[in-house]
């Protein structure tokens, strides 16, 4: 007879079989048997966070920067509910997470026991799938399936809820059964005729654009290589969503910058005026499309996505291709090379007018801002940070708000998996714990969380985690004492009624850093900025960098609400020039 293992042992055997190295968690009554078992499994290291939301975001940072699923371990009740924000965040941004939660013993379920909650009920809409384990015999099968669901198809979070009595019960262990197909949920069923149609559209287009998203990152490093090949082969301009940054070099001439609400003038106008839009692994999010009725009216639209429900959800497309973007791009490249070996040269002439137009838009220099020698402009701070860290293979996380958009605009990424930001859910407090996870995955790399002072206070307690595990993360706070993006919307749309968007009584971030046992640095003027940033980089300890920036700077360019791509609001200069028209803050 084969050996019997307890439920807690089975959890770790499964994690070992899945090559899990790190779990992010927080103990509690209903997961104690699992925590008790931890000591017997040396290959798995537990990272103790300070709040379960932090565990979730750290696991997300780990997953995004490493390409491996992040594992979270929390207790029942508040442990599980605290993880809900992170699970939802991972669901929106398609990040593979496996969350294991403890539950009250089976016989107490439904009795409103201490620290009981309907975990599977609460997390049902924010996970790809979840399981309540009612029989220890099912445990190993469920955990292996959980990893499979999280990592295949369009990735996402899953949750396995394990009652405490199940963790004690004993049974045989069934090893991971690797199946290729999962209940028909993996969709890579495109065919050659679709590829041929796409190539035909590409050959006939004179104003093409590639619009790429997080799907390229999720498809693995090969997808980014293929994308680079496709772009150089076609000579097409390319723009990227917030999540797709890094899949194509940010400093390349064919790259038009990010598109969308705070995207560049050239990217948004090119989206609006193109005759062929090829969406690769993006999802026509409302921050991207602007007013949907006037979205890119003259173009044929192609949508390549692994998730069939992403197609035709927001924007009707002419040619949907359901499949892994790597495989699709590979087919497109092959077909293009075979059928049109000198496509690039023949295409150059055809798209030359289009490129002229794009250069015209480019010359507007929409990311420009009026610099100052008295106060630090936030954009300037990010530009300096970029210049001083670009040779280091730096990993950037962000919180949510103005600083996030400035980071996306002014920090140029050349490699995938270097940029971790909460795009779909827009979770303030994401960046600090995410940086913890990134640093765990890449202990020798420079990891910087570009933060706002309001966001970072939502999960500031994770500094303690960083100190405990000697993670030299750098928290680069653009401190304007406001919830900047809220303030910006109030200025533009609510007659400067800055209702509750100013934070009085902010902590002294330098002293706060010292209190946590890390290093605090403050920069007040543009003159000292470079030197202070260098100081930050050179400290081999966690750092909180309090960068005091202009309090009233707004994030431009911007597509105001309900406007299409070609009606962008440029910077303060633009507003001054258009003063006479009153409402004419919009260009074109």
């Amino acid at each position, binding site marked *: 007879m084969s050996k019997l293992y307890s439920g807690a042992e089975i959890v770790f055997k499964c994690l070992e079989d899945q090559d899990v190295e790190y779990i992010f968690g927080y103990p509690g009554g209903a997961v104690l048997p699992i925590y008790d078992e931890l000591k017997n499994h040396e290959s798995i290291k537990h990272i103790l966070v300070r709040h379960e939301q932090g565990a979730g975001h750290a696991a997300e940072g780990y997953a995004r920067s490493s390409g491996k699923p992040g594992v979270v371990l929390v207790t029942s009740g508040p442990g599980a509910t605290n993880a809900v924000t992170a699970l939802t965040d991972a669901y929106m941004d398609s990040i593979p997470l496996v969350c294991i939660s403890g539950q009250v013993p089976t016989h107490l379920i439904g009795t409103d026991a201490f620290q009981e909650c309907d975990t599977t*009920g609460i997390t*049902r809409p924010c996970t790809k799938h979840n399981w309540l384990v009612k029989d220890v015999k099912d445990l190993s099968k469920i955990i292996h399936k959980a990893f499979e*669901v999280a990592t295949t198809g369009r990735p996402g979070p899953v949750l396995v809820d394990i009652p405490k009595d199940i963790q004690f019960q004993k049974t045989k262990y069934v090893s991971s059964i690797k199946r290729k197909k999962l209940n028909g949920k993996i969709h890579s069923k495109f065919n050659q005729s679709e590829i041929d149609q796409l190539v035909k559209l590409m050959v006939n287009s004179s104003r093409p654009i590639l619009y790429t998203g997080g799907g390229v990152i999720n498809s693995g490093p090969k997808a980014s290589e293929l994308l680079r090949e496709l772009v150089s082969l076609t000579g097409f301009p390319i723009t990227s969503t917030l999540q797709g940054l890094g899949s194509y070099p940010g400093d390349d001439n064919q790259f038009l910058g990010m598109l969308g609400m705070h995207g560049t003038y050239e990217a948004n106008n090119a989206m609006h005026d193109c005759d062929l839009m090829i969406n690769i692994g993006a999802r026509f999010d409302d921050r991207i499309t602007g007013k949907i009725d006037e979205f890119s009216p003259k173009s044929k639209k192609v949508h390549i996505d692994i998730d*069939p429900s992403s197609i035709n*959800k927001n924007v009707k497309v002419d040619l949907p291709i359901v499949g892994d973007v790597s495989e699709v791009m590979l087919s497109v490249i092959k077909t293009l090379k075979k059928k049109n070996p000198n496509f690039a040269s023949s295409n150059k002439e055809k798209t030359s007018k289009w490129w002229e137009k794009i250069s015209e838009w480019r010359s507007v220099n929409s990311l420009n801002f009026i610099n100052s020698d008295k106060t630090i402009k936030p954009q300037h701070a990010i530009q300096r940070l970029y210049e001083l860290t670009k040779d280091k293979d730096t990993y950037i996380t962000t919180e949510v708000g103005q600083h996030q958009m400035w980071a996306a605009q002014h920090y140029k990424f050349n490699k995938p998996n270097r940029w971790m930001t909460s795009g779909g859910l827009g979770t303030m407090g994401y960046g600090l714990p995410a940086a913890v996870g990134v640093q765990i995955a890449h202990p020798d790399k420079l990891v910087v969380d570009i933060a706002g002072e309001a966001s970072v206070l939502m999960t500031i307690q994770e500094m303690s985690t960083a100190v405990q595990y000697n993670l030299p993360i750098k928290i680069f706070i653009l401190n304007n004492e406001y919830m900047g993006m809220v303030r910006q919307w109030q200025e533009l749309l*609510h007659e400067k009624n800055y209702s509750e968007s100013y934070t009085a009584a902010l902590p002294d971030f330098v002293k706060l850093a010292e209190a946590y046992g890390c290093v605090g640095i403050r920069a007040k003027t543009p003159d000292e900025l470079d030197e202070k940033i260098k100081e930050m980089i050179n400290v081999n300890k966690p750092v909180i960098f309090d960068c005091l920036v202009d309090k009233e700077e707004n994030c431009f360019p911007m597509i105001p609400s*309900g406007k299409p791509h070609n009606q962008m609001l440029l910077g303060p200069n633009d507003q001054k020039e258009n003063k006479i028209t009153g409402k004419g803050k919009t260009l074109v």
Partner: protein
Amino acid sequence: MSKPKSAYSIPGKKQKSDTHVIVVWVDNEAGVLARVVGLFSGRGYNIESLAVAEVDSKLNISRITIVTTGTPQVIEQIKLQLGKLVPVHKVADFMRGDKKIIFKEMALLKIVGNNIRRKKAIKFCKKFNPVVLDKTNKSVVIQITALRREIDTIMNDLKKTGLVSVSRTGAVAMTRGAEVFK
């Protein structure tokens, strides 16, 4: 029109809605109905009626029949979103007006009244395979199977004859002929 003060775009044009019957084959496991129904409520789709029961005890498969209304785009989304759920095996979609499909609903009708009224009630139901399930000298319980709107009509007619209670199922559907939906 006032300027929308919102971080979101204003709603676009609305398309025409149609009524569809969606049939879903699922693993009969705990919480599966909540997943399906939660998907509808969470994404703002509506459910007109719902019928669910296990149809294969060996393979543990339940069949869920949902009547819903939506624009073609919404119906397409419903199908695709349902298809993504892990316990869902297949999803079929029929227009309510589709001639190749049989739809049926069942209703139990309780009539309280004198003999003449009760007889009249049974007569009203004649077209819809009435089965008298219970009889007393004061009341009768009639089972009928019909389409939704037919049941609506007959309920109206039966008000005069002493209809006191109605219990209805959701619609179930099946294709005509030898074909089976794969």
